[in-house]
């Protein structure tokens, strides 16, 4: 409960909530005070001193002073204005005001706006250059020390929000400045180019390079001409108030040619949303917004800077038709006619089930909906699936078994406030970077506990309180042993179990084999560590467990996911804030693709195709008879092609020819298809096998919605017109369907959503109007628009409202012949999305991470004579790859790590098998062993010196403003007034 306090502001009594700072209290009362360094997402930084006010007769920084009952505040006296002016003068000593010719003159410059707000006419201390060069070394942003006001926002964001811990201000320098690592050029530091610094910079010191020389009408002028203009303006100006209107006018003019469009990122399942600033087809910058529900002001390098692919010359701009050994560009009409003929022929000759449809977890909900509607309603087959089959279907199954909804049980904010976060088999800092920042921040600043279980010492493992490295594929065993120990100690949440859970006794009996001794022997984790985990869960108010491919891509992936959910049920970690299960979705719309029926056994909204009532509902709305038998999943489609049952395939937005396992097998299947249609933005590996390739438009060129890992539905708006003759996927699918007699007449994705929502109880209250701008909804959404940020608060979606403990057994991972003596782990890199067909189009990303590499341990390197750059061949029973080595202690012993960012000889899936999770057919990507041969002993390191992994971070809390205050030339402005000293900060 918020308590109210009584205060007096400028002589007026008022009553306000007492848990805020003086600044917040004043702003609530519409009393605007200068606040240059303050940022709502960063909190008080205390470097600028412009927010000084008088509280009970003393000058204090209002941003960091908590309000107290009886406070008497003065914000208006001459003395308050004088101390604020002293502070602002110090800022202007560090910043040249040339607003009209500044790329940051977009109405949001804090320096410009504060000068106006404070009605400052002149500065008593003139601007003075700092003795440092501008740093243009990083490909994405630049730093101009001369414009830097040393507010420390960038440092705060880097240290405590993004927690990469690269930036600091060196307060010991005569003229302080921002430094990277131990004072290196930006590009040689540990900077991951996440863009937080340029996002929070209040002026033009830290700026996205897309903006430089492009944003203003006058900013593209040659540097020396520009300098002369600046000098002239300064000499001629009669006071700041006379030049400000000119720059304001120029800023207003910019609005006519700079377009700002809200979009949702497509690089992972976190669902970051932000404004994209564009000038024609030039991307000026990506600007995250405080109100963005999943990410606030946070981004990673891909979301902030990785959009060059949209304008790539390699984009497909016309349909392609295979003719002999080459494709021929064709017009839409010809391509669609060919598809029409071939589809009708196959359907008539071999029946609807000879056709297979693969939709995309990168496309919109509306597009997934139409793809499955085409398969089911127009063709008449349930052969429809999407790539979540390759990643998170086992997690969905594990949750369906136990808690009834296949999605994250809370929101990212729950992860943020959890007492304990356990990360199992997930490389969050690289695969879900923005979500990981929330854990890193809570762990660094707020005492959150962090336990990581992984084969590889990733960044989160490095930061954790406890890092365990179980033997590959044994997670179910240690999770069950910890659960059993908790039960045995009497630490289970009895009340929760009695009231809200079924199957307790049977489940507890099933735990019998999972003793500490057994677990220690199977997993290699010491009993002591297992007990520590149990104790930590027991002693913490709430636990969130995050997992990903390290759990799911195994023979027993669904069972391990179930074991995680069981552990959470036993400890009562469901249905309360800061707790729950979080299967981190890998793509922007993995959740949505499944929600919208891109699976062979379920309609949109996870309604079974075998359910007569459900089918009748869909048949009525779609006006057609629908097949009752579940269809083939991805995995079965491939074997179906080999068996000659599947003849035609229509695939969109998936590079199955690189991301499916056992590629040689998949490629030979593609070769056997009678007719293959691929819809993509590039000529992907998969598209190379197609008979017809249809040019699609990426997210920037269409509207629609995505559903992120928190079940959050968000709208994206169109930034650009589709390039060339490419089209949004929903339009293409509609044209294909209409060639087959569908008669669809959707003119906007909103109409598709309206139809889908009417059929899906989970989405029943979802409308485009409710999703306007940055508004979002988390399913289930009731008809009146009430959504569900936290699931299971009062019941689980089972008939009796109770969750179910579900006994599972450990499945031993695949065993290989002795000659395959290395275990090959695999996964993502921060800077590349999957195989990289989008991210390699960014010259900046490619310069820092140009190719794939194989991480080998120092032990293995010593044993085999490997060094950075050694070229090796890895061979598994299924195929081989050629790749350069990188020696690192992120891996140990005979464990090697091969990231996915290769489209060539290093592509991981030449090694993987067709073995799969026994319950879902999700390939067991993580169960590979291989042998190694050295092809060339010496070579250049595959990881350039300028890669962030070679940096040297400098962790500290915030900007360390105390060091500024301790400088001999700093005097608190309030003291100056009384002592009359003239010093600057």
């Amino acid at each position, binding site marked *: 409960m918020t308590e109210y306090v009584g205060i007096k502001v400028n002589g007026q009594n008022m009553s306000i909530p007492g848990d805020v700072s003086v600044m917040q209290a004043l702003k609530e009362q519409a009393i605007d005070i200068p606040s240059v360094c303050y940022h709502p997402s960063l909190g008080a930084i205390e470097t600028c001193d412009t927010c000084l006010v008088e509280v009970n007769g003393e000058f204090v920084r209002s941003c960091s002073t908590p309000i107290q009952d009886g406070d008497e505040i003065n914000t208006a006296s001459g003395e308050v204005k004088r101390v604020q002016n002293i502070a602002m003068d110090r800022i202007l000593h560090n910043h040249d005001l040339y607003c*009209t010719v500044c790329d940051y003159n977009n109405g949001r410059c804090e320096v410009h706006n504060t000068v106006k707000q404070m009605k400052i006419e002149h500065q008593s201390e003139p601007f003075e250059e700092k003795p440092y060069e*501008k740093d*243009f070394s990083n*490909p994405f942003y*630049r730093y101009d020390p001369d414009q830097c006001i040393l507010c420390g926002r960038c440092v705060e964001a880097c240290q405590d929000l993004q927690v990469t811990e690269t930036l600091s201000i060196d307060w010991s320098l005569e003229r302080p400045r921002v430094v990277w690592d131990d004072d290196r050029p930006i590009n040689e530091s540990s900077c991951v180019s996440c863009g937080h610094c340029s996002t929070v910079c209040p002026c033009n010191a830290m700026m996205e*390079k897309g903006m*430089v*020389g492009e944003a203003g*009408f*006058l900013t*593209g*002028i*040659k*540097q*020396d*001409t520009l300098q*002369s*203009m600046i*000098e*002239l303006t300064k*000499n*001629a*100006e*009669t006071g700041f*108030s*006379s030049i400000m*209107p*000119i*720059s*304001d*006018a*120029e800023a207003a*003019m910019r609005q006519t040619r700079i377009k700002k469009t809200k979009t949702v990122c497509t690089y992972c399942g976190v669902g970051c949303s932000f404004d994209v600033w564009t000038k024609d087809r030039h991307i000026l910058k990506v600007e995250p917004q405080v109100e963005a529900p999943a990410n606030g002001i946070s981004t990673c390098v891909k979301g902030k800077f990785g959009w060059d692919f949209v304008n790539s010359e390699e984009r497909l701009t*016309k349909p*392609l038709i*295979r*003719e002999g*050994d*080459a*494709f*021929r*560009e*064709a*017009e839409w009409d010809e391509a669609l006619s060919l598809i029409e003929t071939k589809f009708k022929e196959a359907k008539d000759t071999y029946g609807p089930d000879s056709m297979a449809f693969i939709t995309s977890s990168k496309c919109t909900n509306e597009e997934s909906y139409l793809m499955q509607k085409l398969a089911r309603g127009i063709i008449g087959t349930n052969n429809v699936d999407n790539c979540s089959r390759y990643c998170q279907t086992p997690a969905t199954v594990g949750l369906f078994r136990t808690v009834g909804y296949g999605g994250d049980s809370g929101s990212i904010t729950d992860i943020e406030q959890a007492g304990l976060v356990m990360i199992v088999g997930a490389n969050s800092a690289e695969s879900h970077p923005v979500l990981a920042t929330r854990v890193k921040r809570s762990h660094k600043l707020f005492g959150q506990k962090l336990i990581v279980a992984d084969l590889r010492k990733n960044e989160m493992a490095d930061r954790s309180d406890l890092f365990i490295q179980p033997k590959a594929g044994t997670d179910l065993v240690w999770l069950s042993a910890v659960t059993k120990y908790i039960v045995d100690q009497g630490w289970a949440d009895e009340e929760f179990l009695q009231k809200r859970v079924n199957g307790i006794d049977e489940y507890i009996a099933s735990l019998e084999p999972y003793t500490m001794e057994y677990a220690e022997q199977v997993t290699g984790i010491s009993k002591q560590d297992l007990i520590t985990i149990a104790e930590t869960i027991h002693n913490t108010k709430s636990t969130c467990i995050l997992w990903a491919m390290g759990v799911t891509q195994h023979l027993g992936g669904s069972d391990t996911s179930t074991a995680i959910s069981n552990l959470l049920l036993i400890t009562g970690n469901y249905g309360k804030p800061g707790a729950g299960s979080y299967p981190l979705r890998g793509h922007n719309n993995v959740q949505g693709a499944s929600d919208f029926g891109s699976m062979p056994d379920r309609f949109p909204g996870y309604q079974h195709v075998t359910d007569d009532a459900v089918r009748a509902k869909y048949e009525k709305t779609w006006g057609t008879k629908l097949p009752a038998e579940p269809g083939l999943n991805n995995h079965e489609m491939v074997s179906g092609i080999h068996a000659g049952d599947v003849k035609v395939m229509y695939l969109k937005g998936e590079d199955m*020819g690189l991301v499916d396992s056992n590629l040689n097998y998949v*490629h030979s299947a*593609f*070769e*056997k*298809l009678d007719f*293959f249609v691929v819809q993509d933005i590039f*000529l992907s*590996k998969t598209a*190379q*096998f*197609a*008979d017809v390739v249809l040019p699609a438009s990426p997210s920037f060129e269409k509207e629609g919605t995505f559903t992120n890992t928190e079940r959050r539905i968000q709208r994206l708006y169109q930034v650009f017109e589709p390039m060339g003759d490419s089209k949004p996927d929903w339009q293409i699918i509609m044209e294909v369907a209409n060639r087959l007699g569908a008669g669809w007449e959707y003119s906007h994705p909103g109409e598709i959503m309206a139809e889908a929502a009417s059929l899906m109880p989970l989405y029943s209250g979802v409308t485009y109007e409710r999703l306007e701008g940055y508004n979002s909804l988390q399913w289930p959404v009731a008809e009146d628009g009430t959504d569900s940020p936290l699931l299971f608060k009062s019941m689980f979606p089972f008939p009796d409202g109770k969750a179910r403990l579900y006994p599972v057994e450990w499945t031993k991972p695949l065993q290989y012949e002795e000659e395959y003596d290395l275990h090959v782990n695999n996964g993502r890199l921060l800077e590349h999305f999957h195989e990289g067909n989008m991210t390699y189009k960014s010259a900046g990303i490619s310069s820092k991470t140009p190719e794939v590499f194989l991480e080998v341990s120092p032990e293995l390197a010593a044993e085999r004579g490997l060094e950075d750059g050694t070229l090796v061949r890895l061979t598994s029973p299924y195929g081989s790859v050629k790749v350069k080595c990188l020696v690192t202690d992120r891996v140990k012993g005979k464990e090697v790590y091969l990231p996915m960012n290769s489209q060539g000889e290093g592509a991981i899936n030449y090694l993987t098998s067709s073995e799969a999770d026994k319950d879902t057919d999700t390939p067991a990507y993580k169960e590979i062993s291989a042998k190694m041969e050295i092809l060339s002993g010496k070579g250049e390191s595959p990881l350039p010196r300028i890669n962030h992994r070679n940096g040297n971070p400098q962790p500290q809390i915030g900007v360390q403003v105390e060091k500024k205050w301790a400088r001999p030339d700093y005097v608190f402005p309030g003291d100056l007034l009384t002592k009359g000293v003239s010093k600057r900060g």
Partner: protein
Amino acid sequence: MAKAITKIHHLELSEEEQRRRDLEELETMLVEHKEVIKDFLHMLDKIQSRSGLDVVTGLFDKGDEVLDVLVKATDKPEVAKIIKNTLLMLGALGKVNIEDMNPFIEKINGGLHGAVQSENKEASYGSMLRTLAAPETKKAMAFLLSFLSGMGIEKPKLPAAAAEKEQKSRKNWLLAAGLSLAGAALLSTQFSKKESAQYEMMHHQ
């Protein structure tokens, strides 16, 4: 057997076909914007009749150099002073109450007239004394004295609202100036794009 292929034969339009499509596109645009184009051509005609187009061509052709020369020529202390003084004077003029000045100016005109006529007359002390006693002179002296005493009065500070209004009116004028400055410079930036792109490249390395 559909092997993976990567070769693409691009759809190349014949020169004739491309030309036909371009013309068609232009034709549509012309028809759609008929009125604007007619007005625009009319305006161009006027400009051309005064050789304006040659000037503009020259300006745009050498946009960067012209701007550089102009700015460098302007970036001198005395020029800065001229601009500054102009700005200050304009500011001062804005404060003068012209309506009040009208009678004042008429009086000065009358005075000047009298002065010019007096140049042709011989003046004696007697006539001078008479002039002093004349009602016009008394009136003029009273007027000058009240002017002097008015000058001596300390101007009371304007109330905040009025001050803001004053500030605003000054700003409005500057806004217009700003817009025209921006407009002028815009012309040159449009033509310096190529060079500035090179500059960006250089600085982005």
